[in-house]
């Protein structure tokens, strides 16, 4: 009774849509793939070529100041990063960090303006919200498929997939943060004759900053997890170590690479959180 029509060709439609997009926009995708890929590689190499001691020291010093002149985070950073170095995973760490950094920055650069748009327009909000829901609930692996179609394999499709997966929290919390600004403050800025952008930059964004930063923190964490998954489509870094250990059933190496990811995650998380509380006082 339920078989009143044949199976709808949704999969086929998506497939041909993807093919069409790939063909039609290859003029766009190809240069991105090449130029951006080159840039990523260069960036990763540069990071990896800095002597580890210097990187560890810089991180420790920043950690000290960012956490309000406490030693905890600095000590943790030194030990954690040294451990990764000790396990011979330094280069992988730097590549993973490069991927996370670039994709987070892009997520924020794209996400904040979209969040602002949503906060200013009810229509935009009602269109974008379901898209965000969709983007976040779709299993992360699914994004890898079109990413490969558009950008083949490597760092660039990894970043693409990470963008889709990690941008929503920044968008949502930017929107929320701006909408939460007290009406009286918005009225005050209008009553003194602010233009729309003066209102945004002098009142709304500064007031929404800590909420936005909470979104950015989530975005960074999500891009880290996506960058690991993206190793399946050839993104280099710690994730690739985990993946290859999995394929060869090497519990030990897999665990070590996993620890490396955890250490990176903790350091990044504490950094972004502390930046937020420091400025939001």
């Amino acid at each position, binding site marked *: 009774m339920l078989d009143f029509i044949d199976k709808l060709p949704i999969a086929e439609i998506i497939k041909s849509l993807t093919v069409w997009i790939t063909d039609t926009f290859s003029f766009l995708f190809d240069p991105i793939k090449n130029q951006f890929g080159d840039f990523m590689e260069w960036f990763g190499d540069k990071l990896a070529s800095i002597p580890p001691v210097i990187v560890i020291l810089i991180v420790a010093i920043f950690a000290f100041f960012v956490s309000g002149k406490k030693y905890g985070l600095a000590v943790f950073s030194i030990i954690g990063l040294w451990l990764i170095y000790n396990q011979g995973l330094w280069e992988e760490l730097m590549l993973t960090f490069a991927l996370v950094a670039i994709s987070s920055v892009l997520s924020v650069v794209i996400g904040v303006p979209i969040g602002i748009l949503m906060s200013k327009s009810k229509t935009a909000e009602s269109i974008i919200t379901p898209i965000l829901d969709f983007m976040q609930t779709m299993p992360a692996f699914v994004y890898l498929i079109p990413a490969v179609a558009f950008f083949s394999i490597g760092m660039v499709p990894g970043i693409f997939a990470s963008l889709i997966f990690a941008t929503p929290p920044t968008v949502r919390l930017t929107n929320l943060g701006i909408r939460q600004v007290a009406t009286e403050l918005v009225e005050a800025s209008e*009553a*003194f*004759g602010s233009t729309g952008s003066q209102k945004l930059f002098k009142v709304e964004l500064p007031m929404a900053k800590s909420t936005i930063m909470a979104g950015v923190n989530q975005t960074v964490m999500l891009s880290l997890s996506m960058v690991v998954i993206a190793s399946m489509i050839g993104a280099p870094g710690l994730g690739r170590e985990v993946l290859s250990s999995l394929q060869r059933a090497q519990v030990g190496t897999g665990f070590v690479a996993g620890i490396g990811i955890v250490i990176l995650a903790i350091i990044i998380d504490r950094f972004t959180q502390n930046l937020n509380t420091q400025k939001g006082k």
Partner: protein
Amino acid sequence: MPVIKVEGLSKVFGKNTKQALKLLDEGKSKDEILKQTGSTVGVNRASFEVEAGEIFVLMGLSGSGKSTLVRLVNRLIEPTEGSVFIDGEDLARMDKQGLRKVRREKLSMVFQRFALFPHRTVLENAEFGLEVQNVDKEKRQQKATEALEMVGLGNYINQYPGQLSGGMQQRVGLARALANDPEVLLMDEAFSALDPLIRKDMQDELLDLQESMKKTILFITHDLDEALRIGDRIALMKDGSIVQIGTPEEILVNPANDYVEKFVEDVDRSKVLTAEHIMKRPETVNFEKHGPRVALERMREEGLSSIYVTDGKRNLKGYVTADDASEARKNEIRDINQILKTDVPTVSKDTSMHEIFEIIHDSPVPVAVVEDGKILGIIVRGAVIAALAGEGEVNVENA
């Protein structure tokens, strides 16, 4: 030309605004309209004018539409009907840019709950209005500092609002509004969040500032005492409509309807205080000894336009006016009895403030307080208003 002119201004919140306005025309009440249409009448056909240099008070209970009305005046809220003119310019006709210009140059607002920017220092708050006008930094800081000094916060410019007390925060709000040097100040329950003592200080301060600044002020309050103290004229609102506009005296003496009367009755001082609390030592002349010449001299010295006349035992005989006395002197009249007026408004020691008010309202001379025919003191019009408004100059020793 009035600085602010409001004409038939209405605001209906909700969807069926047309229908709600129609029901208003049919004389339906705010509650009935809410029930029938689901729309709330915020302001109903308000009309008034505020002249330059005047403090115009909008008064009414909570929910009577005061905030809505003041936000219509600077168009933070779009009116459903009616118009607002600032210096003769129709606000509704302005494009965004024109409206911004008016807000920047002519209107400044002080908010009920301060509405200070917590991420900016006191100075940065005060300079906000100038900053959005792109005044250069040095100049705007100088003006903002001046405004802060004017309200007595010169030492706090680098603090954050969160570090200040409520009264100080409200001063920052006032300084922020003054820094622009606007023509008009819109003050939405600016002092309501303050405790009574600080509130009275702020009222005094506003009156002092007003002496020198001569701004046009639209002041909102739900407190009659406050309205009486600072208002040149008062408009009473109920359910979005203005039910009476008048000077403090007019409102107290001739309440337009029960609603106003109830409001006025709540001025409890009018019942507690009596004539003897507010009378002053009388300036008199003795008709047995003094002639018009002396009377005139006395009046000159004291700056009076009339003076009471008694006999040697302070029994009240009447009064003479300055005009009559100088006329008499010209005509060489020696006897003060010839120019004596006897239609003396008198009250007794324990006449209530209310009754005094009605007597003094249409009396050209101060009211005499008499006992057994002897004059005890005089009451001037200002003293009654001051007393009703809760100002301190009440003679407690007399009580």
